């Protein structure tokens, strides 16, 4: 499964089942709160095996599923 699909499934199932229309471009600002962002960080670290730096947890990387997928791709290569 593509990273963005994995993320979408995870977020829609575990964090925001009340946002069924969400897609990869949806602004996560309106979907997840600070506690859900923490959950996403822990999930990414567990699943993709790298540490998410504090500097990285900003809207540029976490603003949407597409941005998150691009961020994970970049980090996995480094």
């Amino acid at each position: 499964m593509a990273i963005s699909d994995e993320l979408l499934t995870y977020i829609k199932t575990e964090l925001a089942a009340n946002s069924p229309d969400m897609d990869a471009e949806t602004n996560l600002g309106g979907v997840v709160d600070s506690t859900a962002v923490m959950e996403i960080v822990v999930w990414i670290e567990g699943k993709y095996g790298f540490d998410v730096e504090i500097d990285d947890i900003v809207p540029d990387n976490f603003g949407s599923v597409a941005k998150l997928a691009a961020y994970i791709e970049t980090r996995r290569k480094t």
Partner: protein
Amino acid sequence: MGVRLFDLLRTSAAKHGDKPAAVFPGGESIGFATLDAHSDRVAQRLRRLGIGPGDRVAMFHDNSLPALVWFWGILKSGAQNVDVPTLAGRPTIQGILDEARPKAIAIDAKQAAALHAAADEPLRLPQIWLSTDDSRPAADAREAGLHTLTDIVANERAGTSDPGTSQDDVAMVVYTSGTTGRPNGVMLSHRNFVSNLEGANALMHLTDRDSILVVVPLYYIHGRMQLLLHAMLGGTVYFSAGFQFPQKVLLELIEYGTTGFSGVPYHFKQLLDRSKLAQTPPPALEYVLVTGGALAPADLDKLRAAVPKVGIHLAYGQTEASPRITWIGPEQLERKRGSLGIALPGVTVEILGSDGLPVATGVNGEVVASGPNIMKGYVSGDERALGKVDDKGRLRTGDLGWLDDEGHLFLSGRSSEMIKSAGERIFPQEIESVIARHPRVRDVAVIGLPDPLLGERIVAYVTLHDGPPIELAEFRQHCLKELPFVRVPKSFEVTDELPRTDSGKISRATLKKAVSSRPSGPGGTGGG
């Protein structure tokens, strides 16, 4: 007549006309003079619609520029602003609207669109809408009269006209959940707020050179207080894009160069743990104010170490006290660990024993406050019958604590049923009503239990109808379909029975007490 809240804006507009009163994410801003002039026009429109003193207007809005113009316009019309928590869930919101009976509603396009799209029973709203053109499809579908800001600014005439409001008239209604099992509409007068703002600032000494970053919705009284205080000072309020990303909030503090920041303990804990606050402290930041609960001593030490040049202030209050009751500043904080400070000027704090009489210094009892900041009453009119206000007009906070020999307040227990989790204020009812819709649930009670990270952790206790075994995760999934993550209980407990009051209602207070006194389990730090 005395100073009314809108007089604060008028005075600042005369003194600081071009200065930004508010700046929003993306750089949109509004100056004091423009905010004053636009809100005058809103007041005129409301008056022409027959809305004025004695009427209420609901505010169903995320933080935005129009929300500020509507807010001041409502006050200037002489009407009362009723803050509606947008995230509270439909039954709670409907309950607030049904009780407060607003004649009009200021609603943002996002809320209007959500109403328009909703498949189930729509909210019953007033038929006069203050909004933007984006809300037109929703307004048309409901045959509501839509009044847009663009239209009002273009077509209403300039100039002020005084609604004749007195200082003792109600300015705002703010809903909170006390110990009464239901949301209470707290009616706060102009005098309540003005006395509290002046009392707070007599201690903090902020001026027109101060500015603040706001990370909470304005429908929390904590947010309103910051807005009103800076209107009084002539200082600029910067609105954060939100608290999802603490590092982003730190970047905002640095970029905007605000002198102040205010939050609840959760916000500070997040900034300490999940931003580079210590490595890159905001250079212009001079003070922070912690409200809504005490910061754990270890976190206070961490905060002091992270931003050694920043003055740390703490305040304690309740919505019913407009909201501030006590305050402590940086000089005292080191010396008086655990103190929530001294009473604001004009406010009296007493500790009463179970016999209703004042106890001696150092003795634990109920915290009781009196002064010009104490609410006019509840919309429901039963604040005395409920024992929230006693026969001497004092506010019975329901919180437990003691005073030391210098008048410093120390708290030993909170009684409010309002759950404070992750910086949110949550009505237990809004979560219970969702859980109660699960077919297997017979009764439910939702309480907040202490949590080192979240402040309070939401825990749901359910009794079940007979049936096959059920996975508790199912309740979580059920809630996730209707509630934002932060409002979904962190744990569910099945129990045979829930404690009840003499009148047969489920008693969250008794439940909380019983759970908290257990040696382990969800009340302890390891459970849940």
